């Protein structure tokens, strides 16, 4: 299989790598860069466990080839905390018990980052709609909603 060279900036660090054209961005992040905080929960782009920020906006990294991300800036869950300080959303998920098994959590948090960028003070309805591209099977979502509301208040 042929290889392509790509250069991406991941969590502030420039990386050049050689990938198969068909390699999914999520596999590139997880297996080549060993950033395993981004998860894979489905194969049809429904669950959102693989959500990362691609050039500042949330994107499902299972639906993007690594080569398509060439030249982009990517933030994964590992890069969200700054100088050891949790992002308000991370703090909110902790304070409000917004996670149980934790598998959907990184994607849920990354989706919420974009939600709050677009709507800084969302209503509960807007929060629920805003995270409906991300599935959670443990929490029933109520504590996730609380977690996002916490982040809105603390920012």
């Amino acid at each position, binding site marked *: 299989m042929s290889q392509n060279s790509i250069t991406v900036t991941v969590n502030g660090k420039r990386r050049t790598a050689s990938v198969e054209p068909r390699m999914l961005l999520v596999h590139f992040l997880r297996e080549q860069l060993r*950033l395993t905080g981004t998860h894979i929960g489905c194969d049809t782009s429904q*669950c959102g466990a693989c959500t990362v920020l691609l050039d500042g906006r949330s994107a499902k990294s299972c639906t993007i080839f690594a080569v398509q991300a060439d030249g982009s800036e990517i933030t994964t869950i590992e890069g969200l905390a700054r100088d050891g300080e949790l992002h308000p959303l991370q703090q909110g998920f902790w304070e409000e018990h917004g996670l149980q098994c934790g598998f959907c959590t990184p994607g849920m948090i990354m989706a919420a980052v974009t939600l709050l960028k677009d709507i800084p003070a969302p209503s509960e309805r807007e929060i629920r709609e805003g995270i409906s591209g991300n599935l959670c099977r443990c929490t029933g979502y109520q504590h996730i909603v609380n977690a996002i509301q916490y982040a809105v208040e603390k920012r």
Partner: protein
Amino acid sequence: MPASPVLPKMVGERVKRREDPRLIRGRATYVDDIALVGMQHLAFKRSDIAHGRIRAIDTSAAERMDGVEAVFTGKQIAEFLAPMPIGTPFPSPEHRAVAVDTVRFAGEPVAVVVARDRYVARDAADAIVVSYDPLPAVVDVERAMTGQPVVIHADFKNNLAVPLVPSGTGVSADGSSVDDSAIEAAFRKAEVVISQRMVNQRLAPTTMEPRGVVAHFEPGKGTMTIWSSTQNPHILRTFIAALNGLGEDQVRAIAPEVGGGFGAKINIYAEEYVAAALSKRLGVPVKWAEDRSEAFVATTHGRDIVGYVDLAAKRDGTVIGLKLRLIADIGAYNMLLTAAIPTLTMMMANATYDIPAIRCTLTEVFTNKTPTDAYRGAGRPEATYFVERAMDMLARELNMDPAELRRKNFIQPNQFPFATQTGAVYDSGDYEKALDRALQVAEWDRLKAERDAARAQGRLVGLGLAMYVEVCGIGPSAGLPTGGWEHSQVTIERDGRISATTGASPHGQGNETTFAQMLADQFSVPFEHVTILHGDTGVVKQGIGTFGSRSQAVGGTALHMAGAKVKKKMARFAAALLEAHEDDLVFENGTIGVKGAPASARTFASVAAFAYRPVPLPEGLEPGLSEEAFFEPPNNTYPFGCHISMVEIDRQTGEPTLLKLVAVDDAGHLINPLIVEGQIHGGLAQGVGQAMIEEVVYGDDGQLLTGSFMDYAIPRAIDFPRFELEATVTPTPVNPFGAKGVGEAGTLGSTPSVVSAVVDALADFGVKHVDMMLRPEKLWRIINGGRS
């Protein structure tokens, strides 16, 4: 010494979870995050037909591919891997991890590839060509019972896995003697009888993390390490050892971070057996990570029981008899607990009511579908659903308030312990208290007025109420092939910190937090000084695992017992240091001292240090502070509650919307109410999901039609209102904390309450019952008088 700060009491507090920092930072390790040097990847070639004979498998193209290490067909695997064992005493057909000559469900493995990476492995699996002689697919369970269109397993006539098991009034414990007089008399005396066939449909558990396994056999040492996304590493160890010719001492099973279980990760699956066997055979580590599409066919499904319910009552609402005929569609094979799950439906048919005569029968049937097994609630939601829907129908028939009908029939608080007609002994309960609390929280009378006002405006609004009682804290060893105890070891380390192991292996339940809360209080040390270890048979000496809402009731008790033992020993060391009697000592705020003489107290850490260098060694003591305990519960626990729903159906589209869901749950004493709330929320979501949007559907050819998240709907955030929770507290006498267990409770009452609310909303259309799921099309047809 300086005064110690007063430590807050931890048990009963809403302590935030100590698991979370690693999870919210993306620093946790799930099984697919593991990479070992030289690790090969597995991909399974799966049957694309539901039923047929394998004529030929051509693996040559796959074997020629660059990066492919090996390819094995089922026949080759069978040469070194025995059939899959089950954990129930029922007769079972041979089940090979990889099919040898016949496939019996779409998705059954037929060959496996070992390759350099997951992409190559998948390419090679796709390159395997299998030809079949197709057989008719057995899909409809009630037709299957007649042996039509074909028998799946030659030795199981009419596809009957379990031909007929009776239970209830007049049936001896072993089912061999059956006396019908009481149940027949009840129905003769009945003034009103409700009869309804109900379907508790097939569901897919869908943990957000699919399954996965890494197996690493080290030929030099002759030992196996297996990482698996499992709820019970110790049970995994037992079975992996047995099928690989190894002793349990030679296998280490690790459950790393596990992304949800819901019962589906109790089983020991084909892929785990194959991964272990291939690592042993090839001498390299191997990994298999399940795709979501695979999960829908390869991970067990849940529920799928048809119930014929007959309820006999007096006109005043007194229930005098219940008949429940159950037919379980268990799919193509028996898995670990498959056959046992529907027996729990019989066991819980007594519900919260004092019913003088009950008769249940159970038939389990093979079909050409994915096998069923435990799914959150596992048999109890089905019982609750059948009985509560029938109670709702009775209330409607008698024009009684559904709450008042329940109240009239409750088992009373003074009747506990209560021996049910179906072989359970309920530990404790106050059902009327839970009902009253729920009616109060929901403002039942106001809701009824609201509903009536909405109806008057032509809106289709309905209310539903359901009680539940479930069997949890599973359970005494007689009921489980693995034993039903739990194990813990508590160690006071040299520096005075505490580490404790538990066999209750969590996958989202937060045991690291709740168990640390318990030990912090037990020793009066800072919560931060306690570490809970789990999920690794190399660290946790013994265990059963996490299922059946047992972590707190059984695992928590073992922890407390081990803690008590080591505390007693520590007190003896402290007594020697303080020249006091151990009975006069008090553990307080990180110190141990003589009661009433705080100035003399030694720090907890200094007593620990003394225990590890005891000079002189107090008489009768061994050095060190580490004790273990096994807790064998004397009984199960029986938590209960009341769930109330309000729904509105869109007259134009038939789409139901859940407007309100009130849940009052009684799980006894709570260690961490925040975590308990989370557990209930999750259970409610799955219970509502079953009622409204979830259903595994097969075509007549046995093809799965709901094989991805595009077709199988699990609830999204937008599907729910804010749940309203309250608790009543009725402790159990079964364990010292009085905790009953709460992991599954949410799935019990919510489902029938939502369905009853929808039936209520459609009352004007003459509907008495609607089977799940509540597809808008189905409701639209009812609203439009059957017009298509």
